[in-house]
Every structure is written in structure tokens, then in C-alpha cells.
């Protein structure tokens, strides 16, 4: 009798937090009618999912500070929202965790060199903001191996990191070329590169930017070359949860703002010289004329805040990947459209 009543009591106690949970999710659903934007604003911090393992895009240094292009996207959004680029909590996500983290609301934005694909956009429950880096999948081989193109990889082993479009692109391309190869697939990006470095694989495939970035931390970066051929196009874009138009708009237009600022020649250094400009396009972008921010639920000067604190797109690119960094990546397709690149922001009006 006593045994049973104590068991009963235990079960009831166990059930309490669960009922609590269910009430919480009921509330959560009510809240999701309102936007993530309000919740982020109330929280006073942006929770940003990054890779944390890719120099130039998102990398944690020994002091625990994050830097990189993907990180700066988060900082720009935080600056636009709170006028403070450091109001960001970073979460390191691997390729497998990232989508679930967005779906479960664990992160507000996924800024983690994620390729924008139709299936992710439509059936994984994501919404993609504008592309922040136009990339393509490449292949790294050892200079000494004498491999010049993908066909030379016949009968070889190729190291791949799992959970990316990379695996599928590799299979597609090799099938097209009729090249037989053995994929050695790793969950952990560090293990993949370490295995390649040990000589287990003849080739290492990943996004070109990732290969260049990781090459810089290999023991002898000069011994490795990237093949000319590209295996795919990889537009890397930040992603947010599906079906939250207001939050999606915020992320989208902050990024467009960074691009538009570069097009108009506004950067973090000269932004204050534009305060007395007569150019109404600049005025609207910086929020001194009109009320473009209002429609988003943001202050009108949200772009000005982001550019002042973090810089325009060009500044962000040069700081993280441009000359003066170990990567020295030419901008190529990542130039703004007026200079022959693909970056194009819709008009701010």
C-alpha cells in the first residue's frame, strides 16, 4: 500500500513538469502568432547559429571571440536591432544540428555557410535570406600527386564532410564523368581534414571558400592546390524559420542594407559625412528621410546602425576574406552588380 502510494506520488511529480511543458508549448504557439522579432527585441540579444570552425566565415579564437563573414552578418543584425553589434549569443552548430536548431527555435538565425537549395527552402522548414557569399564546390589535392582535373581522380579516395550538399554534388559529378572513386565521409570537419592531411585521401572536397580557409590551418598550406573545376554552385545564405514573415523581412533587409550601402559608397568610416547629403536615396537608406524602418518594426536608421558598427558588405568581405587576410580571396562573383558581380539589393524606397 505504502509502496504504491509512493510510486503514485513519484509519477505525479514527474508529470508536473510535463504538463508544465505542454502549457509552455501552448503559450509558444500563441506567441508564434506574433513574431520572433518581438521575442528577440524583448530578449535584448540575438541568438545566432554559426559553424565556429571555418576561418574567415565563423571562427572562435583562443580568447573565445568570434569572427568571420557569417559572424559579421549576425553582428550587423544585432547592431540594427539594438545598436550593439555584441548583443549576440553564438551557438556552434554542426552540419547535422543546424536545421533542427532553427526548427526548434534554439537559434533565431542560422548564419553558417549553408547552401540555399529548393528542398531546404520548401520542405525543411527554412526561409533563406539573400545570399551573402556565392561559392562553388571545389576539390583540393596535394601538389605532388600530379592530379590536374577531376578525371585524374579515377580509382582514388576522396574525403568529404557529411550532412552537406557536397556529398551529393560529388556523386553527381563523378557519375557524369564516369570516374570511379571511394568517398570517405566524416561527420566532423576536423576529422575529415585531418584524414586528408594524413594521406588517406587523394582529394578533399568542400566549398571552395572552405577549402581555402581550412588550407590556411593545414601544416604545409603550400603543398595543396585547388583544382580549376567547380563541382557545383553554392549560394551560401543565412536562414530563418519558415512562416515568420516579419522576422524574415528584418534579416533580409539588414543584409540588403549592407549591400546597398556599399553600392552607394557608404562605409563605417565615412558614414557621418553623409548626414547633410542632398541625395534622397542615401537619406532614405540611412533613415534621415522617410520611414522605411517602421514597416519592419525597426528604427528608421537601422541600416545606418549596422554600417556604422559593422561596416558595409565590402568592408565585411575585405576584413574577413580579402587581401591582408590569409585567404586573399578575389571577390569575383561576390562583387556588387555595378562592378560585374552578383550582389544586388532591391531599391530602398
Amino acid at each position, binding site marked *: 500500500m505504502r509502496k504504491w502510494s509512493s*510510486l503514485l506520488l513519484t509519477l*505525479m511529480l514527474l508529470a508536473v513538469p510535463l504538463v508544465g*511543458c505542454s502549457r509552455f508549448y501552448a503559450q509558444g504557439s500563441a506567441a508564434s502568432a506574433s513574431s520572433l522579432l518581438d521575442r528577440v527585441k524583448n530578449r535584448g540579444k540575438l541568438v545566432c547559429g554559426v559553424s565556429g570552425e571555418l576561418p574567415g566565415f565563423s571562427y572562435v579564437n583562443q580568447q573565445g571571440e568570434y569572427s568571420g563573414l557569417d559572424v559579421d552578418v549576425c553582428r550587423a543584425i544585432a547592431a540594427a536591432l539594438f545598436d550593439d553589434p555584441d548583443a549576440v549569443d553564438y551557438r556552434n552548430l554542426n552540419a547535422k544540428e543546424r536545421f533542427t536548431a532553427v526548427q526548434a527555435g534554439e537559434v533565431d538565425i542560422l548564419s553558417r555557410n549553408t547552401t540555399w537549395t529548393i528542398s531546404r527552402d520548401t520542405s525543411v522548414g527554412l526561409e533563406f535570406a539573400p545570399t551573402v557569399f556565392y561559392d562553388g564546390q571545389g576539390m583540393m589535392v596535394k601538389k605532388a600527386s600530379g592530379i590536374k582535373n577531376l578525371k585524374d581522380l579515377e580509382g582514388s579516395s576522396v574525403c568529404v564532410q557529411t550532412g*552537406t550538399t557536397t556529398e551529393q554534388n560529388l*556523386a553527381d559529378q563523378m557519375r557524369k564523368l564516369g570516374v570511379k*572513386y571511394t568517398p570517405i*565521409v566524416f561527420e566532423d570537419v576536423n*576529422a575529415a581534414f585531418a584524414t586528408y592531411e594524413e594521406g*588517406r585521401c587523394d582529394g578533399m572536397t568542400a566549398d571552395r571558400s572552405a577549402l581555402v580557409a581550412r588550407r590556411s590551418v593545414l601544416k604545409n598550406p603550400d603543398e595543396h592546390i585547388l583544382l580549376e573545376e567547380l563541382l557545383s554552385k553554392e549560394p551560401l545564405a543565412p536562414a530563418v524559420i519558415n512562416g515568420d514573415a516579419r522576422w524574415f523581412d528584418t534579416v533580409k533587409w539588414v543584409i540588403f542594407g549592407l549591400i546597398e550601402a556599399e553600392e552607394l559608397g557608404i562605409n563605417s568610416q565615412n558614414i557621418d559625412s553623409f548626414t547633410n547629403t542632398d541625395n534622397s536615396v542615401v537619406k532614405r537608406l540611412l533613415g534621415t528621410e522617410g520611414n522605411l524602418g517602421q514597416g519592419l518594426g525597426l528604427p528608421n536608421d537601422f541600416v545606418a546602425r549596422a554600417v556604422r558598427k559593422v561596416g558595409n558588405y565590402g568592408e565585411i568581405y575585405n576584413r574577413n576574406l580579402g587581401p591582408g587576410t590569409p585567404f586573399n580571396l578575389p571577390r569575383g562573383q561576390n562583387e556588387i552588380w555595378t562592378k560585374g558581380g552578383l550582389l544586388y539589393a532591391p531599391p530602398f524606397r
Partner: protein
Amino acid sequence: MSTSRQRGNSRLPNFKDLPTLLRDARFWRFAAQAIAVLLVVLLVILIVDNVIYNLRQLGIQLGFDFLRTQASFDIGETLIPYSPADSYTRAILVGLVNSLRVTVLGLIFATMLGLLAGIARLSSNWLLRQLALVYVEIFRNTPLLLQLFFWYFAVFLKLPGVENSITLPGPTYLTSRGVFLPWFNPTAGTGLWLVLLALGIGGAIALWRWRVRLILEQGRPGNPILWSLGPLVASGLLALILTRTIPFSWNLPQLVGGTQLQGGLRLSPEFSTLVIGLVVYTGSFIAEIVRAGIQAVPRGQWEAARALGLKPGRIMQMVILPQALRVIIPPLTSQYLNLAKNSSLAIAIGFPDVYFVASTTFNQTGRAVEVMLLIMITYLTISLTISLLMNLYNQTVQLKER
């Protein structure tokens, strides 16, 4: 009041009489269980409902249709034919076969290693005893994941390249691209050979038994070895005459052009790492189980066997181990289950086992719930099968008290 309690002792109390009912211990014995079940069911419903609700919020539909779509990723090691054009189902099946291959090999070798190390732990030879102790303590007390990384990065990938591989007699080549062993190729006569050989072995066993019985029952010289050799030799000769070939041809690995190894059986570094890692790790646990099992056999059994004049090896084989098995089998089953489940650590070292392939599938399709369900069902099936077989075996070695 007193009358109702008296009646309550003889049969269940009247339901109309609620206060009496609530005071009745037997009612509560019943009700508490019912409530417990109800709560558990409620819990499950709550969780499932929560999942479905949240998925619907995201516009995600549950369903297993995606399994039929083209996987379009490649798998490095396949025992059954597979190409990226095949479906996810096929890909997961390839992974499952890989998993089973590792598990079965792992179970066999871990048992052998564990048995040897466990007996060595109790050996009268000081060096052997200490070696076994060091082995057990090192591998039992470090995480398996760490050990796998050790075997992979520090052992297998550090082997020399194909050009200057370590060559063992056989020939066996140890290279950073894998271990190349001599293997056999079936010939046209292999089938017939196997059938005749099986018949020969069957005949040999039957003759052996008959001759041994003669020795035991009639005290006549039986020569069982000579007799049982007869059918073996006969079947071999017959097969040779019929097929005119040897049962199989050797498939030896060969160095081609100094840079490539061809032929033979190639074990990839990933596969070798996983099998070695699992065997060495699980073996150390099995060693302790075997030691405990042997020590659980009363000393009197040793003494009695020794008094009969049996040699130490014989005592272990015929007296001690059969009794120790009763203690060994149940914890051994747990270790077998651990090995089967630990094989999913393959994901760390790039071996495409079922968990790996399934998680790639999950990654590409975003079907978290469905894929996790599939993985759970798969491992549950493997585990329950191992457990069932081991329990059946346990029944045969258990002490039968009549």
C-alpha cells in the same frame, strides 16, 4: 460498519459504498496500477501530440515516402551492389549490411580475445598475468571514442603508403590505404567440394563417436583418429577426381607498377579501425566477466579435478568453464549488446554503417523524426535478436535443479 468490513474481507466491497472502497487496501493495489498505466499513457500521448503539433506548425508532414526517392550520395564501402541512383532504402540497407558485418566479426573476435585475456588474468605465469592486467585496465578505463581515434589516426593512417608498405609473409601488405590479405577465389568446383567435404566431416564425426564408444564400453583399442581420417580423405579424393581442380584458388594481393595494390582481400583503414577498436575494448570487459565466472567456481572443483589426475588445460576445458558459463552468459549478453550499439561510433572515423547512412539521409531530407524512428527500430531489432539468442543459449548451460 463492522459488517461491511467483514464482507469486504470475503469479496470486493460494494462500489456504492465509496468511503469504504477508498479505505480498502486491495482496491488501492488495483487502482494505483491503473492510475500508473494511465499516467504513462497520458505522458506518451502528450509527447507524441507535442511533436506532431510542432511539426505541423513548421508545415512538415510525417511520412516515409522519402525513402523511395533517389539517395544521390555515394557510399565508400558496399557489400551489396549500390549506386547513387538507388533509393534511400537501398542506401540504408547497405549501411545495415556494413553494420552487421562489423558486429558479427566483432562479437567473434571479442569473445576469443576476452576468453584468452580472462584466463590469462588467472594464470600461474606472472608475466602473462601482469600483461593481461595491463591490457584490461588500459582498455576498460578509457573511452571507446578516444580509442577509435587512436587506432585510426595513430595506427592505421600512420602505416606507410603503398610504395613502401610493410609486407608480411602471405603476402599481407599493411598500408595507410588499408590492409591487403590473401583471400581465396571460388573455382568451378567449389560448390561440389564443399558438399563432399561436409559429407566427409559428417562421416568422420560419426565414425569417431562409434570408435570412442567401443573404447569406453568394451575396452578395445578404437583408433578413432585413424578411422575418422578415412571418410575425410575419401571425400577429398572423390572431389578431386570429380572436379579435377583444387577447391579454391588463392587470390594474392599484388603490387602493380610499384604504386598500386590489386587483388586479395582489402580491409579499409576505417573498417579495420572499427573492428579492432570494438574487439579490444569489448574484449577487456569480457575478460573481467570470464575471470569473475571462473572465480565463481568453487575451489573444490579444481581440487577434485586435480585429484583425478587431469592436466590444467583439461580441467579448464572440461570442469571449470562449463560451470563458469552459468555466471558468464548473462553479463556477456550485455557486452554483446554494447558492442552492437557501439558500432555506431563508426560515424567518427568515416565508416558507413547504418547509423551513418541514416543520419546522412536525415541530413539531406530533414526527416528527423522518421529517420530517428528507423534507427531506433533497427538497433532495437539487432539488440533483441542478440539477447534472444543468448538467452536461448543461457537456458542450455544453466544449472538444472530437479
